[in-house]
């Protein structure tokens, strides 16, 4: 008889990854604002402070720059910090330590050290939290050599990518989508690693490739189902890793389908889709392209508070369907 598949929410999967990493390795510890007794603003750390104690689940003062620097210093000296930002928007306070220090120290020191830290960023819109609590800034980090950037779309990848990130000898930025925290999916109970740098084809198709990230993966899959009814067979790739990019998977897919649509929540201009598009446009897949490369990204405005405006500011399923259709039918 089959074991019933165990399902966890995305938040629970992240929590399980941290718990397993802390069990396996004394050097791993968590830090962040209100991650202890409060359990994290989104409940991700939950009761870990009760299980691992306040020395390993450290509530920090509200001091993002300092906390990031503390993580860098601890990592330099052999500890393995996992730092939670309460919202990814607050990374703006810590870019100095992330970009000038964490990302560069190893290189600047000619390889004498490494900086094994993980930072976790709850990101994205859809919660009515307005412009300063809804951004998707992952593209900034993907622009920075020395960092790795991952963005899971499922509970399974959330756990596997976080475990890989904690193992990694270099700084890894994990972008989590707030609207996904409560979504459930199968998660193997044992510790396992999802490789950093590998995209995943979530649906194979022949007519076009849709490359999506985070919650857009789900919207792309929904769109693909609608398109299928329409006779359009979309391949959906979950990018998962924004730095390094899985060039091979992307080029191979587009070479087969001959059309590309990038769907992402970050602002359209210079969001991750810009890089995917450019990567294909300069690749051997270019000659195979039968249509311009489509992009759907966040609107060119701060995220508005009003819910209808907020929805209109990021790609939705009908937008994906329409754009995919236009690409396939040559009406772009």
């Amino acid at each position: 008889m089959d074991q019933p598949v165990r399902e966890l929410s995305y938040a629970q999967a992240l929590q399980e990854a941290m718990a397993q990493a802390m069990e396996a390795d004394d050097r791993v510890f968590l830090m962040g604002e209100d991650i202890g007794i409060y359990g994290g603003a989104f409940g991700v750390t939950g009761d870990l402070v009760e299980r691992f104690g306040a020395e390993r689940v450290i509530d920090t003062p509200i001091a993002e720059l300092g906390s990031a620097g503390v993580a860098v210093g601890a990592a330099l000296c052999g500890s393995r910090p996992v730092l939670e930002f309460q919202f990814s928007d607050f990374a703006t306070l810590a870019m100095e330590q992330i970009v000038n220090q964490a990302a560069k120290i190893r290189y600047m020191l000619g390889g004498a050290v490494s900086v094994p830290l993980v930072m976790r960023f709850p990101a994205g819109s859809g919660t009515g939290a307005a412009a300063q609590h809804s951004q998707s800034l992952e593209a900034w980090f993907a622009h920075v050599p020395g960092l790795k950037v991952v963005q899971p779309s499922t509970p399974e990848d959330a756990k596997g990518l976080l475990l890989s990130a904690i193992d990694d000898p270099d700084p890894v930025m994990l972008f989590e989508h707030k609207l996904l925290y409560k979504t459930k999916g199968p998660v193997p109970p044992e510790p396992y690693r999802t490789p950093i740098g590998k995209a995943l084809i979530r649906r194979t198709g022949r007519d076009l490739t849709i490359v999506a990230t985070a919650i857009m993966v789900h919207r792309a899959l929904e769109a693909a189902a609608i398109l299928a009814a329409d006779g359009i067979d979309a391949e959906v790739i979950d990018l998962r890793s924004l730095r390094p990019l899985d060039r091979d998977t992307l080029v191979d897919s587009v070479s087969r389908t001959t059309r590309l649509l990038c769907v992402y929540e970050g602002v359209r201009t210079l969001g991750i889709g810009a890089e995917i598009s450019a990567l294909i446009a300069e690749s051997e897949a270019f000659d195979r392209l039968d249509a311009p490369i489509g992009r759907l990204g966040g609107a060119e405005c701060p995220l508005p508070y009003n819910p209808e405006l907020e929805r209109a500011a990021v790609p939705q399923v009908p937008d994906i369907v329409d754009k995919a259709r236009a690409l396939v039918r040559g009406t772009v």
Partner: protein
Amino acid sequence: MTLPAAAIETRTNRPAIYDRLSAAELREALRRMHLIRQFEEGAEQAYMRGLIHGTMHLSIGQEASAVGVCAALKPQDKITSTHRGHGHCIGKGADPARMFAEFFGKEDGYCRGRGGSMHIADVAQGNLGANGIVGGGLPIAVGAALAMRQQKRTDVVACFFGDGASNEGAFHEALNMAALWKLGVVFVCENNQYGMSTSTERSMSVSNVADRAAGYNIPARIVDGNSFADVADAAFEAVDRARAGGGPSLVECKTYRIRGHSRSDRNRYRTRDEIEAWSARDPITRFEAELLELGILSGGDVRALREAVDAEIAAGIAFAQNSPPPQVAELLRDVHSD
């Protein structure tokens, strides 16, 4: 070396502020405190009824600091506010109807429905805006004060912030610059003992935010933040100093937030006893009692005032419900000025 905890000032006789402010002004202050309380309760109910989207941070229990500080300000003076900013906004004279409209995401809201609770502002009344970023308003207040100096205006800027915000680097940089340049800023710390779940003991290496003021050469007072009179007295001193060119001051208001941090708080970091003890020190009850005792208001005045506030809140909610939503076609409006 442990510093002695600076004591909260204690009051000996009839607060001087009751002579500095006219009866009408004191009545207005009480009215605004009621308005804040009712506004917060109205917003809470509206949230429960699904009329409000997102989250919000209620200031129930902190009305005295908001209104006490604003009582010392002139209309043209400015404030910068925080994520817990409804009280500051009403304290500075905003219309609750337009605030509700904002929270309901409507076009008549102060931000045309684009900002919501965390960005509520009322620039016409001098409220430069709430801020979703803890500590975000501190340097902005300093810049506003710099602009006043440049424009040869004597308007003062009151900068509200929390105990938690005082751990941000922005606090340090802002206070240093304000003091260095002797700008007219009053830094008002609403120390409600917690930044979200984290008590000041677990986030600050000193007992009082005011203990940090000496590090900037800024005069500081610690007052009972639940006493309108004590807050207003310290605020007047600081505002007078600022207006006279004497530079910045810090006023630390010891207070307490009665509700959870935001809508998702399970209050696991504090005890019911603590919440009850602070509820018993309600700033509105206390202010009202003092005004009655001193004969500044009569029981009838208070009843009338409360009824007027009830009506204003109900009308405000109705106004907000009837206000039109923004048009989706105007998504990109106001990204730029042109």
